[in-house]
């Protein structure tokens, strides 16, 4: 069953149009990679989905039109965002970051600390004093604490040491195996995306140019639209 549907979505930053025709169909429990070169509209698409940027076209979550809703309503319906640049609340402690927007459900502080033991050890530390990797874990934990149906990860492994990236990938793998949550992933690590994702949607110049299962994504297409195969 379709969880998130985008049809003919457009969006602009002031007068500069960034999205021209984005189409995306993500099913329940599916892990989808949103791919494309830098500046092609991946993060902009996420902003429109999260209602942080105004857009036009059809935007449906669980069959309901969410294009006119404010950001917080969309989040309450079950979209959890791990934004580009992590954006932890820097003056708040780890525990406060996690509980600020928590909603009842499967995810609770003990479960987050089980997934990311490092966060458990730093509960009373302020987010500003954490390493980049820990902040990324905090940002993921914070989104999970809202108990979303769909988790959106925007560049969750960017700028991290290889060993920390591995930890993040392991955690995403666990999420997939243990909870059945749907995930929309933006990442530069093509190899990991290939291994973990069920499907892919490719964007170029603000348009969806390819969509299908990850298995059917051939290296020619990948090379043409993402630049690496």
């Amino acid at each position, binding site marked *: 069953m379709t969880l998130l549907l985008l049809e003919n979505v457009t969006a602009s930053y002031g007068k500069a149009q960034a999205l021209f025709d984005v189409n995306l169909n993500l099913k329940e429990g599916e892990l989808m990679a949103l791919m494309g070169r830098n500046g092609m509209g991946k993060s902009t698409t996420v902003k429109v989905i*999260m209602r942080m940027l105004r857009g036009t076209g059809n935007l449906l979550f669980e069959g309901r039109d969410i294009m006119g809703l404010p*950001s*917080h309503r969309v989040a309450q319906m079950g979209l959890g965002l791990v934004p580009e640049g992590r954006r932890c*609340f*820097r003056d*708040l402690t780890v525990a*406060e970051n996690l509980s*600020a*927007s928590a909603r009842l459900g499967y995810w609770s502080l003990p479960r987050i600390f089980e997934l990311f033991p490092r966060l458990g050890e730093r509960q009373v530390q302020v987010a500003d004093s954490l390493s980049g990797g820990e902040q990324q874990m905090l940002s993921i934990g*914070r989104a999970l604490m809202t108990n979303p149906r769909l988790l959106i990860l925007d560049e969750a492994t960017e700028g991290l040491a290889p060993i920390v990236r591995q930890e993040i990938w392991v955690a995403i793998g666990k999420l997939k195996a243990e909870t059945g949550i749907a995930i929309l992933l933006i990442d530069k690590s093509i190899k990991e995306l290939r291994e973990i994702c069920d499907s892919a949607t490719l964007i170029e110049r603000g348009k969806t140019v390819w969509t299908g299962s990850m298995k059917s994504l051939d290296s020619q297409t990948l090379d043409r639209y993402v630049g690496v195969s």
Partner: protein
Amino acid sequence: MGAANSCTQTCGVFMSFALFAEQVLNGLQSGIMLFVMAAGLTLIFGVMGLINLAHGSLYMVGAFAAAAAAAWTGSFLLALVAALTGAALVGMFVEMLVIRRLYDRDHLDQVLATFALILIFSEGTRFFFGSFPLFLDVPKVIAGPINLPIGIEYPVYRLIIIGVGLCVALGLWLLISKTRLGVQIRAGKNDREMIAALGVNISALYTFVFAIGAGLAGLAGALVGAIQSVQVGMGEPVLILAFVVIVIGGIGSIKGAFIGAILVGLTDTLGGIFLPELFKLFMEGSIATSLGSALASMLIYILMAVILVCRPQGLFGVQG
């Protein structure tokens, strides 16, 4: 003879100590009321980035609400409740009608719009209540003085004001640091877009914060209105002091507002009394008095300047 002399000296020392202690209490009382006023201002500035010149008008609204409620019900306690809730409600409506359109605008627009609110509130109040000051009487039981140790006589009501202010400080500290709402307020201060994207209704949160600030300003207006008088324009001098307080304390910091308010209250009160006396020690009486009181009225601004030179972000402000 010798014994009598030493008694006079000792009594004299006690007298001047009692006078000093009384002035310290006065300073504390005015400082704590400044805190109740400034807490809302610093919260609104710190959380929403809004300069609210109309905060003094909410102080006035509280005082008038209290005077009207006291005249109607005869109860001072109900008058205080009316001040708090009346100002909070007015604050809530003003936030929803006007203020929320200003968050994304620059400070000049905010200053202009909230200055317009001052004019509207002042003329509106004049229209309904007239230009003559109203009086809000403190109940007789707490109006008189009480004897404190070492011969200090001090009005009960002013001690109650200090108590109420301390309770407000404690309550605010608990709200901001211990409750989930407080966590969300602080999160919103760090990244407003992000807290909304996690499902927190930021505009309801802002309305709430504004209403709390407005309610506290109203409470301060009523408490002080009972000592002074309730009249149009009573909020603006306090507003200026409150801005001095939050600049000294560091914008957005409740702790800073508390320390800053006490500092300003003590400096203003003690300076006004003791500076002329100090000058009399080494110059002629009338010159000392005029020079001393002239300098005393500048003292808090000198304090602010000194603190800003040493710590440009204020005592508890965050740099950058």
